[in-house]
């Protein structure tokens, strides 16, 4: 009788575990669903990264590629957002470009979720929210807040020490960091294959200039920065001066020669293109933050960072107003605009002309929402 009672309780607990598992599975699996992006009328075609690198087909590394081609020939630009899925300014800048721009000269290729697998899970041990939302005239739009790394369900196990395709020794977890895996390896891990796919895209589309959009913590030294490969030193310096005239403070950082595997280093070295990485300051990304909430991601206000700024511990100005997402996106888009205007100055044959790009002043004033398209 006692045994039967014990088995009954065990069976009930087993059912309880299965029920909890089912409910949490629904939540976790919802993270795999991509939020819709509604491209502008200027979109010429939409492809998958696997069309450049077929090994990615039917893997979580395959991702959308949006192409905008002008009537006139000019330069070819690649804009990469979401290499790190927990850096929303890079992703949102790409989304805003996709939903607004028209290209009259040259070609722009935008990859909003460069590491698509990173969007399917959250950063472990951070207590990050699954989503943040933005109010638009067409209703609330929700966006995934993912992880810096490829989902371990898609790439496992991590080595103890990772030696990346460029020969750099890194920590094991960096084997899932797209921005440490360039120039990629065709027979390598999923992340290395994604890096290979992006290298193939650069080569097949004859890219002249590539921009990788990122964010970092306010206490990290390489912040509010333009990191440039030596191929694009003049372009980066001219863009910086123009941005400073417009009132944006940026640091100019040369891509270190001995730090291998990063986009700006390997794109420049292996594809001989102009390569630039942009960093904005995100409080939700840092170690000093309090609770990570959707509000912290969008509004960028955190009292710990205000205190740290007063103590002189940060590398960017930070006050009670925080650094909101709209300002971080405005900085990225201002940098893109400035880089393109100076590209034309330095290389007139590589001119790229964009219409309807959200201006940084409007973004700062009205926010991101009004620039999002209605669902179609």
């Amino acid at each position: 009788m006692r045994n039967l009672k014990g088995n009954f309780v065990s069976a009930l607990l087993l059912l309880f575990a299965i029920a909890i598992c089912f409910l949490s599975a629904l939540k976790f699996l919802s993270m795999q669903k991509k939020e819709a992006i509604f491209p502008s009328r200027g979109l010429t075609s939409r492809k998958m990264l696997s069309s450049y690198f077929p090994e990615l087909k039917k893997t979580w590394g395959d991702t959308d590629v949006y192409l905008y081609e002008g009537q006139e020939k000019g330069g070819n630009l690649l804009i990469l957002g979401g290499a790190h899925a927990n850096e929303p300014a890079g992703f949102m800048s790409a989304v805003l470009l996709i939903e607004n721009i028209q290209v009259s000269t040259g070609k722009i290729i935008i990859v909003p979720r460069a590491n698509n697998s990173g969007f399917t899970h959250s950063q472990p041990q951070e207590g990050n929210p699954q989503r943040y939302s933005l109010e638009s005239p067409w209703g609330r739009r929700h966006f995934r807040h993912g992880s810096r790394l490829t989902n371990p369900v898609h790439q496992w196990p991590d080595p103890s020490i990772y030696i990346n395709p460029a020969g750099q020794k890194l920590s094991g977890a960096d084997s899932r960091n797209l921005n440490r895996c360039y120039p990629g390896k065709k027979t390598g891990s999923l992340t290395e294959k994604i890096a290979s796919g992006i290298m193939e895209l650069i080569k097949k589309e004859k890219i002249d200039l590539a921009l990788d959009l990122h964010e970092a913590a306010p206490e990290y030294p390489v912040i509010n920065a333009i990191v440039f490969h030596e191929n694009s030193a003049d372009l980066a310096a001219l863009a910086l001066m123009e941005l400073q005239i417009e009132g944006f403070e940026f640091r100019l950082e040369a891509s270190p020669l001995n730090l291998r595997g990063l986009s700006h280093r390997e794109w420049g070295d292996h594809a001989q293109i102009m390569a630039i990485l942009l960093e904005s300051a995100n409080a939700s990304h840092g170690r000093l933050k309090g609770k990570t909430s959707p509000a912290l991601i969008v509004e960028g206000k955190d009292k710990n960072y205000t205190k740290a700024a007063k103590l002189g511990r940060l590398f960017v100005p930070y006050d009670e107003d925080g650094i909101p997402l709209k300002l971080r996106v405005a900085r990225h888009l201002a940098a893109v605009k400035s880089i393109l205007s100076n590209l034309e100055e330095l290389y007139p044959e590589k001119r790229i002309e964009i219409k309807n790009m959200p201006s940084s002043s409007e973004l700062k004033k009205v926010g991101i929402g009004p620039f999002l398209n209605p669902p179609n």
Partner: protein
Amino acid sequence: MQIVYHLIVFYLTCHLIWCLFREKKFWNQVSVALVLIMFLLRLFLIK
């Protein structure tokens, strides 16, 4: 490699279920059930 992962997690999940039915103390059974949730999520490659 995925097969190896599945086999390890499947073995441990079976072991946990066995422990759940063998255990007499209620709170120990609850603990086993809670651990089981994580193993089931891993077994089905959800998390």
